[in-house]
């Protein structure tokens, strides 16, 4: 399933990185510590976090996560939005918490 389809079903808003919306969602990882994410997340994971800075975009790009979902209405920094747009890293936003978002991802990808 593409991250665009997943986002549609889960009701997430696209915040930046429209060009990457055809990325395939294959799994899910939750975390805010960037090195932890780089050490553990798998390529193709939907990454749930509250970390909306420039470095999060770099981590997603380098670790090949399918997209970033900023939960609990966490803010996406302006420079991060620009970088995500430039690099085609899809970033979505939702008001739901990490746990509920993860359940939705699980139920949808099953």
């Amino acid at each position: 399933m593409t991250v665009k389809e997943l986002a549609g079903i889960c009701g997430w808003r696209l915040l930046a990185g429209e060009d990457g919306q055809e990325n395939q969602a294959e799994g899910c990882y939750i975390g805010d510590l960037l090195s932890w994410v780089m050490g553990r997340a798998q390529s193709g994971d939907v990454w749930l976090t509250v970390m909306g800075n420039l470095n999060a975009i770099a981590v997603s790009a380098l670790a090949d996560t399918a997209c970033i979902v900023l939960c609990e209405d966490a803010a996406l920094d302006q420079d991060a939005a620009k970088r995500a747009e430039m690099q085609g890293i899809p970033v979505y936003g939702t008001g739901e918490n990490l746990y509920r978002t993860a359940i939705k991802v699980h139920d949808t990808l099953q």
Partner: protein
Amino acid sequence: MSMLHLEYQVPGDDFTRAGEASGDVKHKLKKLGYEPDAIRRVAIAMYEGEINLVIHGGGGVAIVDVDPDRVDIALIDHGPGIPDVEQAMQAGWSTAPDNVRALGFGAGMGLPNMKKYTDEMTIDSVVGEGTTVKMAVCPGRK
């Protein structure tokens, strides 16, 4: 002489530019048709190294040599050095300041990640003089 030789200046204390060098290497390896898993391992290990140069090294140089069977990465700084390399390699050990932690770094996973994702890694550090980290990623070995 390697197939492709790249050098990058990594500025100190500028988190906005960290990732430029590793992003560029990733892009070039993709163009060369390198194996995706090896590209990902190079990108992550090198980004962690860049971040270390920014946080601890006061900036430095990243040198990358690409050959069909291996990518060699050297990260060189003239920062304070690492007093106890064995301790620094332990997962969770960090000397990063609070402002760095607020950005999501400083979990003490940088060096362990670099070791995890590479096939060879050495750290040569002298307190007061600087640190050189050398890594190699060989496609298909991990």
